[in-house]
């Protein structure tokens, strides 16, 4: 597993031997992973491999059975989700239906004065390509628009880390291709480090600096897309990527 951690010199996020258990079932089994400043890392795996649980554990939504989560060397394992500054974006159905677009995007900005909040919301909607959508009810948005709004909402409070849990998998193929580029650009333009969970190899390879392959709760290998293809660490990885 050492190879998985070793790739980053001064990691901002370090996941250190993390396990997540649901009763008897070990969903995440001793995973270690590191993220550098501004880096986008994808975790690739089939459904049920534990990648979403890993993400939720990093977010603080799942208690750890073992291991630690470190931010800039400081253990944040005991810090509740709302104090970590890690924002999570889900697959679908995450927008607050009782708030309009502006209410959703501005949700994490309640400490800002109204004027600044409005400016920030406008800025973000511009960034995700939905300028002027502030007063739309979220029930009127298409699937792709909803995910753009969710992305804007996630980035609005300038998170230290962005966690994306299959943000595109509920969309159709064409839209997915369109958005995967956009997300990559937008996230990089803000310089936010991101951990991106997906089951889609194309998506992961198109978006991430490095990709981790996960199976049955264990992280098999983390490396650049090219290195993974050229030099799979195990037969399982090779099989998964074939």
């Amino acid at each position, binding site marked *: 597993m050492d190879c998985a951690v070793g790739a980053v010199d001064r990691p901002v996020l370090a996941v250190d031997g993390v396990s997540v258990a*649901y*009763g008897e079932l070990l969903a995440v089994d001793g995973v270690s992973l590191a993220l550098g400043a501004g880096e986008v890392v994808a975790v690739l795996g089939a459904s049920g491999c534990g990648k979403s649980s890993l993400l939720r554990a990093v*977010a*603080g*939504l799942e208690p750890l059975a073992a291991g630690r989560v470190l931010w800039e060397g400081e253990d944040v394992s005991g810090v*509740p*989700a*709302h*104090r*970590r*500054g*890690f*924002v*999570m*974006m*889900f697959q679908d*159905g*995450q927008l*607050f*239906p*009782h708030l309009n677009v502006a209410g959703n995007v501005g*949700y*994490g900005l*309640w400490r800002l004065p109204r004027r600044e909040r409005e400016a920030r919301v406008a800025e973000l909607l511009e960034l995700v390509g939905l300028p002027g959508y502030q007063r739309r009810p979220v029930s009127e948005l298409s699937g792709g628009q909803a995910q753009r709004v969710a992305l804007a*909402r*996630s980035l609005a*409070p300038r998170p230290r880390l962005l*966690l994306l849990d299959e943000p595109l998998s509920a969309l159709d193929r064409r839209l997915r291709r369109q958005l995967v580029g956009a997300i990559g650009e937008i996230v990089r333009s803000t310089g936010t480090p991101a951990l991106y969970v997906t089951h889609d190899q194309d998506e992961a390879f198109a978006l991430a600096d490095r990709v981790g392959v996960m199976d049955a709760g264990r992280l098999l290998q983390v490396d650049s897309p090219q290195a993974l293809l050229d030099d799979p660490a195990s037969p399982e990885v090779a099989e998964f990527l074939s």
Partner: protein
Amino acid sequence: MAPLTLSLAPIAFFAVFFAWPVATLVGRGFWGEDGFTGQAVVEVLSSARTWRIIGQTLGQAAAATVLAVLLGIPGACLLYRRKWPGRRLVRAFVAVPFVLPSVVVGVAFRSLLSGPLEFLDGTFWAVLAALVFFNYSVVVRTVGALWARLDTRAQDAARTLGATGRRVFWTVTLPALAPAVAAGAALTFLFCATAFGVVLVLGQTRYGTVETEIYFQAVTLLDLPAAAGLSIVQLAIVAAALLIANRARARSERALRLRGDAAEQPLTGRDWPQVVVTAGVVVGLLAAPLGSLLWRSVAVGDGFGLGNYARLGEAVPGLAVTVWDAVGNSLLTALLATAIALFLGAQVSYVLSRRPASALGRRALGALDAAFMLPLGVSAVTVGFGFLITLNRPPLDLRTSWVLVPIAQALVALPLVVRTLLPTWRAIDPRWRQAAATLGAGPGRVLATIDAPYLLRGLGLAVGFAFATSLGEFGATSFLARPDRPTLPVVVYRLLSRPDNFGLAMAACVVLTVLTAAVMAAGELVGPPNRAGALS
């Protein structure tokens, strides 16, 4: 941690004002002044009369439940699945009998059963009709709430496979509704098995329930051991009904894919069977007895007039207050009771809406859920007498305080508030809370910005239920010692027991019914138009 903290206030309230008084009174039955009297309990439980009454209770409740389900399913379809003007008002109207005091219902039914229908008076059928009258809306609401949100794709699929409308109903829709039908049936059974006033009035001497027998033993004979034995029998029946209701509910939540919002379809000619059955029930069973109240309130001498209504503001000899004063007392008490019931009910339902990961946690929640339903199924006599022998030491000597009235009413309203709010809490996607948390919102802010706005959508109905129940509550109130500040049901009862005030009593009954209906209608109409009111 948070759920535990939130359940502390409701549990304390429940323990002090329900569990302790009831347990003490039942305990007094077993351990009298002369030591252990379990022998007496055994005696009552082995008497033929007791078993005849237990059989009668179960038989009546089972028959009424079957009837309520058969009539309620078409009603649920018409009132919750079909779109037509006035459906929400009818929904509110069918809920009115459920919260009316039995003293009013008893008079209404007996008025209806004199004259051409007299052959029904005092029969099993009269009791059955009254039980269905009370509980029709329980089935309609429980089934309707699920039906409204049922995903139609399975039915569409069945249609494309060549199934007729009838076949789709029997093979796809009904099986999907089964859990709600089971839950509604279990609740109806619970209410029927513990019915008191109306069975006492309509069953006359032949038909009774365990509840009426507890009253007889405790109040007429002061035979506490017998009452205690019967209370335990009743608790067993109630617990069984609750267990079945919970199982059914859990299944309905597991198995079904539901839409967030109600999907109503326009009314078509093919709906005539539902329309006929429901119109028959609403007019013949629900409106007719209430109409007979109205008729007798305007019958003055040999003609008709509003004289009785003019007297509502006049002093009645021997009654400390006018009817309007009593309306004021009732509104104030109900307001306080509603506040208590909502404050506690919101917390209880929130805690119950959680899905703990551990089996132990789930079991604890199940127990909590059942416990807060118990006030619906425990005799008012037991609670009222229990208050007398427990709340008798400072600082809790509330026995002679007026405050005990709203507390007792809140206790009765609490289960309904919990049942009404629970579906609302459960409709909140846990991911919204999680997304909010990762956006930096602490538990308090999540509650205020995510949960509370949602809660408000279900609140109208909960307030309606709580307020209407408190307005009509009579049983527990009549067993409390209270300063002479009578509520409207108490005044109705007192007017009825005097020789020259029948018309005035009827006018007061009509006022009470109209108030109740108005409160339920307001509760029904507040909130988003497509919300399906549920009694989960």
